[in-house]
Structures are given as structure tokens and as C-alpha cells.
């Protein structure tokens, strides 16, 4: 907390269209932190997934329930934290979408996206319920993920 700065908090109702509000603030913030367009794009994708999960699985689209997004810089990382009012889940039980039997499944790729596009993701669950997912990305890490994709193609 000591060297936490540039803190922004955004709270939205649990409707998918509100993801665009988060995207707008995120993009403006990341731009200011000098992330390039590619990096902003992939971080944006990861955050969209976290917020979509909070709305869908956490708050079950109850518009009365809020999703809170915190954004701040801590040492050399931008940290994005997404909190819902849901029942939580066991992250260890989430299947790998790359397993052959899951490849053609219509869901189960959200957390995989987050892991892929961020440097670190972490789940925490409140004693009174509620899921908190914390996403971290090193400042100045320009479009690593796009390049990762590139490598695999070769």
C-alpha cells in the first residue's frame, strides 16, 4: 500500500454493457501509463473477462449488485482488481481449455485469457462471500502477448 498511486475506483451495475465503461477508463489510464496500443488491447481483453465473470458468475446479472473495479500502480506494476458480491468458486477446479476434450466447448476460456494476457492473476474470496480477482501487468511491458502468439505460430 505504501507506494500505491494513481488509484481509480469504478463501480457498475451487473450488466454486460457496462463493461464498456470499464474499458473506457482502463484504456485512458493505461494510455497515461504509456502502455502501447497492443498492450492496452490485451490488458483490456483480460479485464473484460474478469468483469464478465463478476457480472455473470458472481452477481448472476442481478443489476442491484455492483461490480467494483480498482485500478492502481504499485511499484512497477499496474494492478486491476475486480470484486463481485457472488458466492465464489474453486479456481483449482477450473478445467484447462486446451485439453483436447475441452477444445470445442463453448465456454471455459475466460480465466485462461486472463492468465495469458497478464503477468499474474490471483483469486481471493471474502469470508462473507464475494470474489476478488487481482490482475497485474508490469509497466512498460509492451505487447508481450501479441508476440507470444507470434512465436507459437512459427
Amino acid at each position, binding site marked *: 500500500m505504501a507506494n500505491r498511486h494513481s488509484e481509480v475506483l469504478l463501480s457498475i451495475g451487473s450488466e454486460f454493457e457496462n463493461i464498456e465503461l470499464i474499458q473506457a477508463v482502463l484504456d485512458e489510464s493505461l494510455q497515461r501509463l504509456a502502455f502501447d496500443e497492443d498492450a492496452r488491447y490485451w490488458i483490456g481483453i483480460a479485464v*473484460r473477462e474478469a468483469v*464478465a465473470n463478476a457480472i455473470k458468475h458472481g452477481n448472476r446479472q442481478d443489476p442491484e449488485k455492483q461490480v467494483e473495479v480498482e485500478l492502481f500502480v504499485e511499484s512497477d506494476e499496474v494492478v486491476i482488481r475486480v470484486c463481485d458480491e457472488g458466492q465464489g468458486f474453486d479456481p483449482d477446479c477450473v478445467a484447462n481449455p486446451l485439453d483436447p476434450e475441452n477444445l*470445442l466447448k463453448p*465456454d471455459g*476460456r475466460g480465466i*485462461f*485469457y486472463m492468465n495469458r494476457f497478464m503477468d499474474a492473476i490471483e483469486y481471493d474470496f471474502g469470508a462473507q462471500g464475494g470474489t476478488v480477482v487481482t490482475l497485474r501487468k508490469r509497466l512498460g511491458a509492451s505487447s508481450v502477448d*501479441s508476440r507470444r502468439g507470434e512465436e*507459437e505460430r512459427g
Partner: protein
Amino acid sequence: MKVTVREREGVTLLDLEGKITIGVGDVAMREAVHSALDRGSRNLLINMAKVSTIDSSGIGELVAAYTTVSNRGGRLRLFGIPPKVNDILQITQLITVLDILEDEEEGIASFRSGSA
């Protein structure tokens, strides 16, 4: 997301434009695919060239559409994959599963000859 539906040489073309994301774009795509199937189309070709973003729900709908069309004895193919969508298809390893063509001409031709 905007979907434009065209018919060309017995192929139903869906031009997608914008974000295929949860709650809006994904639903629009599903509906377009289902109504093409209901009209009797079995050769579906999706133009991805103007897709700016596809989240995991969008990818999920794409896979679901592919499976549904296959199950009904049809074929669903894609063309014009933008670089960022291509990255996503690589990362999710769907690039080898889905039928992907370079451009519209190649896409249409693939149905003519019977296979990609």
C-alpha cells in the same frame, strides 16, 4: 456488432463488424447463424475482417456455431481473420480446429470444390 447477410453461389455469407463480446455481439452472431440454418443454408462463410475484438464468449459462440452447423450436416468456414483475432485463435488452439480461408474468393471456392 453488426451482421450483414449475403448469398453468393449457394453460400451464405455473414459479414461481422465490431465487437463479438459477451451479452451483445455474441448473441447477434448466434442468431445470424441459427436463422441461416433455419432458412436451409448449409454452407456458411463468416467474414471476420472487420471484427475488432472477440472475447472468450465470442470465441465460445464461434465454436458453438461451428459445432451446430457441423451437426446439422453443414459446413462453417471463416475468412479475413485480423491479426489480433488470429492471435486469439492461436492461443486457444482453435486455429487448427476451425476451417479458415484467406479471403472471400478462396472461401467461396472451397465450397465449390467440396472441401477446404
